[in-house]
């Protein structure tokens, strides 16, 4: 088991290193932040001066080396957008808003997706099953920005029930959380349904029923416990995608989290902030995958024995 964990950890570190190289390269490919910082009135001298100050006149390899050196010392760089906070400080300041939103949307996804998946499997080929399948299809195919805009128009502008955007209270969470969680609700519903169908068909379930175990216990205790392994594997991905995929939702609802920060930093070509955000997002992704891998190995001995 320890060897398995060590291997997974090393793989995570390599993935993070690769991410830094890719993000560093790609952000440079998008162009030069000097043009955004300086107005149209800037002169060539202004431009050169800024290039020197930002270190953009140095070879890319040197820039990357300086960047990695700073990262290893915990310095994620300066931020054009938030000069007072720096890149790391800006991410830390905005992360809680995203964590709250992602947390609520994950709760929604689990709270709605799991029961819907279970009931859909139990009531296979009934109108309820068909409805939940349609719902899941919609959840996975409707773009969340569109869903967000439509909800905003109906529930905030037309009906006036909810605030359009921003943060403030529980009401502010409702539309962004549903928008962000819609894809995950659909994904969990489908995963749970298919895992439950397989489990409901297994021999031990038939035996339990023959032995007179109540249907409620068969479904919610014996079947769900076994069927949960598949969604659990996927849960790590869902958690990470929810956190990192909040860019559109946060932008539409003006939610001041890291997703909106990412959008704004791309527009202002705030290289170091973009790098810090992607590094943090990647770290979250790698970490949640790591946790799920360990959990999975813990729950399924075949995996840990095979790897050791």
């Amino acid at each position, binding site marked *: 088991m320890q060897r398995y964990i060590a291997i997974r950890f090393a793989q995570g570190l390599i993935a993070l290193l690769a991410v830094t190289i890719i993000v560093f390269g790609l952000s440079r490919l998008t162009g030069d932040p000097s043009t955004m910082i300086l*107005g149209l*009135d800037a002169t060539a001298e202004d431009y050169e*001066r800024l290039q020197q100050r930002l270190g953009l006149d140095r070879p890319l390899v040197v820039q990357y080396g300086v960047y990695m050196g700073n990262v290893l010392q915990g310095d994620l760089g300066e931020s*054009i957008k938030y*000069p007072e906070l720096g890149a790391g400080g800006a991410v830390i300041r905005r992360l809680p808003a995203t964590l709250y939103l992602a947390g609520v949307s994950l709760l929604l996804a689990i709270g709605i997706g799991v029961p819907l998946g279970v009931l859909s499997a139990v009531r296979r080929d009934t109108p309820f099953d068909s409805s939940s399948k349609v719902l899941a299809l919609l959840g996975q195919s409707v773009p969340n920005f569109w869903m967000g805009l439509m909800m*905003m128009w109906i529930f905030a502008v037309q009906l006036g029930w909810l605030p*359009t*955007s*921003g*943060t403030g209270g529980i009401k502010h969470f409702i539309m962004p959380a549903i928008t962000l969680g819609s894809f995950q609700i659909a994904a969990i519903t489908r995963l749970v349904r298919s895992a439950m169908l397989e489990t409901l068909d297994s021999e031990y379930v038939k035996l339990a029923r023959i032995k007179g175990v109540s249907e409620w216990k068969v479904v919610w205790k014996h079947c769900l416990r076994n069927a949960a392994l598949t969604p659990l594997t996927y849960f790590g991905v869902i958690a990470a995608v929810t956190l990192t995929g909040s860019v559109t939702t946060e932008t539409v609802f003006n939610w001041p989290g890291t997703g909106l920060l990412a959008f704004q930093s791309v527009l202002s070509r705030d290289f170091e902030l973009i790098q810090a955000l992607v590094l943090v997002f990647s770290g979250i992704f790698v970490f949640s995958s790591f946790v799920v891998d360990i959990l999975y190995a813990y729950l399924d001995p075949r995996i840990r024995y095979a790897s050791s």
Partner: protein
Amino acid sequence: MPAPTEAPAPAATAKITRVIMANTVPLNESNRIWVGPWSNLVQNDPYGETLIENQEITSEPIPALAKSWEVDAGFNTWTFELQEGVPWHFGYGEFTAADVAHTFELLVREDSNSNFKAIWLTATTEIHNDYSISFHFDKPQLTGGRLFSRLQGDLVIQSKAQWDEAGGDDSAYDDRVTGTGSYQYGGRDLGSSVWYEKIDYDHWAGENPDFQELEWQWAAEQFTRLSALLAGEVQGADLSREVQVDAKARGMKVVSSNNENNQSYGFFGGTYLSTVDSNLEPWPDGQSPNYTGPEPWHNPLVREAFNVGVDRQAIIEEVYFGNASSVYVPVYAPFTEGWSDRWVDEFDTKYGYDPERAVQLLAEAGYGPGEISIDMISTVIPGNPEIPQLIQVLSTMWEAIGVDTNIVELEFGTWLDTVRDHDIHETFTILRNTPIRTTQEGLRVFWVSPPDGFLFGWEDDVVNEKYDCLERSLDIEEREQCARDAGDYMYDDFLTLPLFQTTFDMTIDPEFISGWVYPGVGSAHPTHVHNIKACPVGTERCD
């Protein structure tokens, strides 16, 4: 010198305490005026003030923190006599010349991104006494009226006392920056908003805002801003003309700047035709290093064809919903040096829509249908959301006269890099000029070869020579003639595609706001926030 503005009427009783405006997100969110470009001053405008103000109707320079000023005969030294008894917010003492010199020092810091850093770096300050200060420039500085005002100026005066209290640390202004305006800084919610509170004593110039608090709320998405306005969460929003139509249909009102402040025009890319740089030094190889060979629109007939192939009136009606006027010569306006009424009088004849003539002109130039192929850059420039739509309409109109067009979508920064890299050969691109610069500055920014020019929309010897005249001449008549000559040349030779001139607009909710008078001197933001007038209690709407 114009007289100071009259003392305002007493504040009306507003229905709400805090008026909230939904705006686009600034490049950075900071109280440090030296870190961002001048367009970021939307954050500093409510509490900060400049030496020279712009009159709310005409935009003419009028006294502000400087009660008067004078310029020496050579335009090298600008001397300001300052207002006395102007208090800093939060008890930071009285405004003096030391604050002006201190602000100047902030703008010339190594890490300053001041809009006019290159100009500031050629200056020094000299304090005569607490209420008198001079700026000495290496070169004649005719644009001082703009440098020291809100009209592109970023010399928003900062307190030396607050700076010194923080031991000269960069964070001195971060928490609670002081100012001299009729609003004082309230606070900032990073990523969301910044707000201000009305001062609880008489403003030194008599400004008396109707609202106790003002908030700029940042929202990147236009639909979000529109929804917030219609839902009554904000009382004003920065919306494009297209969306203003929806807002107006739902009872909102548009308040425009008193002056058109945004010109757009198209450049026929790759027209790097100069043989000398802008300092009239010959290029080593006798041609601009950016010249890569003849292009169709190096021929004036082709440029004329492209111009008469555009139905400007239809675009004004369909794209701008009637809220735009024509630009005649880019950079020029009736209040800039060198303006000529002839351009207006002859515009319909020379530039009027005539697709048949366009086809004929192309044929005369030797180009049949489909023989000219161009890329058209579609990008969104902040403050000019109509550009992608304009590009589409122009493409359709030019296809109709036999030009092959290919629309290329580019993000703003990438587009700007491309222009500055001189990589717009056989590419049509739209630039904007806001607020409308002086003729000399406009020529430098958009037309002149290096080393003075940097954007390089068009370069040739005639424009360089006329710009050089403006650079060296202090004779008003000579300057007027040089500026006129440059304008005539651009106009008669169809050097560009003059497009449209617009105001800056804010969409407001007339249930809470009755009006807002501002001149249009900001870049993609309104100024004069003390003029936001409340729709008073007891009045249902103020349409």
